[in-house]
């Protein structure tokens, strides 16, 4: 089955950990996992030595999850292709709509 995850809050919120735990468990059980990050959610993949959350999202990606960001919410927040975790896709609300549509369940972390 396909699981969609929307994350709109910064790493301040436990949402990051919960989304990571659910995503990991879904992958382990053989499901596909797609995440869409927008608003302050994009800060979760702002890479830095001390951002443990960003590292955990990179690991989730390595485990098979696809991560797409809303590019237009990255620009004003200073999240760029250079400063973000490698491999995340800078997409748009079109991607958000497609993920919502093609996944069997859609979990919202806001």
């Amino acid at each position: 089955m396909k699981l969609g995850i929307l994350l709109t809050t910064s790493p301040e919120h436990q949402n990051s950990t919960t989304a990571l735990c659910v995503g990991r468990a879904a992958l382990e059980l053989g499901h596909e996992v797609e995440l869409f990050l927008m608003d302050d959610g994009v800060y979760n993949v702002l890479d830095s030595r001390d951002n443990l959350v960003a590292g955990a999202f990179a690991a989730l990606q390595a485990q098979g999850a696809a991560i797409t960001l809303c590019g237009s919410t990255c620009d004003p927040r200073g999240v760029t292709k250079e400063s973000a975790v490698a491999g995340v896709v800078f997409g748009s609300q079109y991607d958000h709509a497609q993920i919502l549509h093609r996944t069997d369940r859609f979990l919202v972390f806001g």
Partner: protein
Amino acid sequence: MKKQVTMLVRHGPLNTVRAAEALRAAVGYTLAPQRVTALLIGTGVCAGAAGLRPELVGQPEVAKHIETLKLLGHRVVADRPSHEALGAFPLHSAVELVDRAEVLKLLGESDVVVPY
């Protein structure tokens, strides 16, 4: 398969970008085969107020998204009890007031509910 999607706008219109972003995402949802309803509830009903001018406080547009949803044949509805609790102010003409019973029916019939 066409999905019925309901976006819940639960936050005030201008304290944060959340109401505007919820509506922007709702417009985005129409780019897939989806029937979209934006439901304004709680303080979120204020996002449907006539005469919002977010630019005065440095916040993003709201009305544009409401109008786009309507134009594309989707719905923007406001929960009547929330609206009354907040003083029953004038609403944008594209926003329909609906009773709580209809709100519950709408949520029950939605394939996906996105609380924002």
